[in-house]
């Protein structure tokens, strides 16, 4: 009887631990793509601004839009982190 209780407790701890590991991996993986993507967006926006400074305002607005769309994926991962952990 006691053994069964200990085993059940250990299984619960194992589950919680695995959930935490899974959540960590999920967020880490979700951050890779958007990280590269935002780098590309901002880098190209800087190139565009340097080439045509008179277009800087419009480029900046579009850059923020691009960042917002790219960033959304990383943020889904962030929310998933909390969903997977609980």
């Amino acid at each position, binding site marked *: 009887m006691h053994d069964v209780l200990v085993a059940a407790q250990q299984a619960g701890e194992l589950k919680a631990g695995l959930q935490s590991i899974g959540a960590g991996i999920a967020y880490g993986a979700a951050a890779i793509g958007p990280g590269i993507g935002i780098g590309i967006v901002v880098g190209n926006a800087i190139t565009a601004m340097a080439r045509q400074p008179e277009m800087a305002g419009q480029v900046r*607005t579009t850059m923020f839009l691009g960042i917002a769309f790219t960033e959304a994926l990383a943020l889904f991962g962030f929310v998933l982190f909390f969903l997977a952990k609980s």
Partner: protein
Amino acid sequence: MFAAFTFPPIDELFRWKDIAFNDSGYGINKTSLLVFISSALILLIFIGGSRKMKLIPSGVQNVLELTYDFVDRGITRDVIGNDATRYTPFLGSLFLFILFLNFWEIIPGIQFPPTSRFAIPLFLSLMVYVLYWFLGFKHNGIKYLTGHLFPAGVPKALYLLVTPIELVQILVVRPFSLAVRLLANMMAGHILLTALALLTSYTLTNAPIITIGPFLLNIGVTGFELLVGFLQAYIFTLLTAVYIADSLHPEH
């Protein structure tokens, strides 16, 4: 040895107890109180500031005109078009409301952004959702939907792939990502600030030599959150304008 450093469970950071009308379903807690205060503040500042308007603005009127001009020129005219100034009041109130809610995150003594509870971003994004569907059908009829689902210039066979993706995009992904973007940014900022503050107080009692590290970092991150709060309000409004523009002239 040092006492173990424990981070409180996430509920403790975001779930506040009711302070009035407890358990009636209409309970008021810190989150809703801050929402009421922000709306009252915006109303007060704008009604008070525009009471005695002068041709040459000064003081508060200057700031108000600057704000209106920022939304009108930077968002409405830039994204929707020069003939769309009638959307500026809506976009402006949206921008200011989110801005004020976000800035509670770094006000000392309060330090909690109400936008980090899902109800508020979700409500705002559902409002935008209803608005752009309504505008789309009002201005373009059923062509608003078909233009999205069957984009011109795509080979017929590809519709099999494109149509479901576009359907999910405009039905689910758009409002959801609009809400989650604001929520996750403010939530992450709040957690980060809490962690740094706890770390400062922990090192102060256990390892006073390195306290200056997390303390300075905390101040730096607070400044960064000022930027994030503004940027998220701006991006939310900008995307709302993009969706409205898409409803008005879907061809580009």
